[in-house]
């Protein structure tokens, strides 16, 4: 019952987002602002995480793969595929759910509690369209980009760690990297990225927009937003894998 009520008003919120902008220039400005705020603002953390995830993958795969029958460059292949398929999209998005999600939820929550949303409504502005839409669209633009960057940086981290730990040279890694490369994996990863981008922007927006009360509730709702979007990301991850990978 609880779930259906929230799901219902979530759908209403999404539907309410689609209306003719009162002023295209202002919406564009807001969109650009959100792209910078949410996208560029998360670049640092995503890069750092990806480097280490890539590096750890290489070292651990090498540790687990002890058979002399398997060529050492296979490690690069495994690192490439796990980074592209899982680490870059899913792990980045879990982290982004925390970074971006709490930002969206607390910003909207604060605007709701301090009546700034009401003030916009009084001016005759559709606040769902003006406040929520640009955030979701900005995430849909920026998060797939961040995921691509995470892939590149992650693989680079793995390559670097391989050399640094004396597991394999750059040449060996590169040989594995380009062997049996399946382009579909990238498509799949981007499909995930778009799905997750929607989840980690829309769910926190829902929680933030519907806050009632004061500062305490803003905190609670942003925590709830992050937890819900993390769980939803993982659920969607599983569903997409089951549907799209055979």
């Amino acid at each position, binding site marked *: 019952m609880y779930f259906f009520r929230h799901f219902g008003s979530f759908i209403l919120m999404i539907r309410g987002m689609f209306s003719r902008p009162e002023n295209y220039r202002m919406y564009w400005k807001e969109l650009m602002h959100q792209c910078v705020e949410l996208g560029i603002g998360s670049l640092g953390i995503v890069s750092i995480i990806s480097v280490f995830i890539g590096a750890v993958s290489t070292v651990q795969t090498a540790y687990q793969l002890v058979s002399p029958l398997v060529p050492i460059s296979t490690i690069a292949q495994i690192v490439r595929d796990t980074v592209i398929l899982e680490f870059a999209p899913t792990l980045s998005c879990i982290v982004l759910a925390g970074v971006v999600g709490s930002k969206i939820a607390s910003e909207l929550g604060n605007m709701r509690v301090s009546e*700034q949303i009401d003030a916009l409504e009084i001016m*005759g502005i559709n606040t769902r369209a003006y406040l929520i839409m640009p955030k979701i669209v900005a995430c849909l633009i920026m998060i797939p980009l961040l995921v691509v960057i995470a892939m590149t940086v992650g693989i680079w981290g793995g390559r670097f760690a391989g050399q640094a730990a004396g597991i394999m040279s750059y040449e060996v890694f590169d040989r594995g990297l380009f062997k049996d490369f399946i382009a579909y994996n990238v498509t799949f990863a981007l499909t995930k990225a778009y799905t997750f981008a929607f989840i980690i922007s829309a769910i926190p927006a829902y929680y933030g927009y519907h806050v009632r009360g004061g500062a305490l509730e803003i905190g609670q709702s942003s925590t709830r937003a992050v937890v819900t979007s993390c769980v939803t990301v993982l659920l969607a991850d599983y569903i997409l894998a089951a549907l799209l990978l055979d």
Partner: protein
Amino acid sequence: MIEVRNLRKGFGDRTVISDVSAVMETGKCNLIIGASGSGKTVLMKCMVGLLDPDAGDIIYDNLRFTGMNTGEKKEMRRQIGMLFQGSALFDSMTVEQNVMFPLDMFSNMTRGEKQKRVDEVLARVQLVEAHRKFPAEISGGMKKRVGIARAIVLNPRYLFCDEPNSGLDPQTSLVIDKLIREITLEYNITTVVNTHDMNSVMEMGDRIFYMYQGYKEWEGSNQEIIFSKNEKLNAFIFASDFLRDAKDMRMLELKGRISDQRDMDSMLRES
């Protein structure tokens, strides 16, 4: 002119506004007064459509606001300015950007024209040195003034102020009251003010609506309020000895009995 007809609003099974009817006239300051929790803010939010009333009608100059669809309401709201109880300034924007925001959104003015208009309204509310400050950096009274500036920048026909002087010192309160009153007369707009400030009631109450537990208990002007026999109203508005004395004084004054000093002295001795 704004007409409220048989308005009713509740939350859950609790009725907050019961069957309120009122006519708020153009070019006048219409005050809604009442104790904390009597439903002033809810009434105002129903009037501007931030809350949907359970029953009743809101009519703006012969246009039935309550029957409008979302698009028509949006259109109508361009003519409404509102000052919120907590100012509700956009805290990511400077004072100037706050006031310019409605212009950016809804006008076709050039950058220069907008700037000119912003300077004009900020000067109107006597704020000239805070243009580039953020809301967090200015005082409560300044925030209210920025809120008023933002509310009037598009020349609204209806101005709503929710407790424009709560939390302000008496002097600043007076300045803000005076400002609201002047704006009302100057642009001949319909102004609705929520307040429980006695000074405001006396200074600018062209029409006063007294709310008691969700009912409209009394209505009249600031002249009539002095002579009102309504006990609830008197208990609310002339709550302290000081105010009761002030009331008696004003009553005498209005009755024209204070013709000379000697007369007043004798009367004071009597009472």
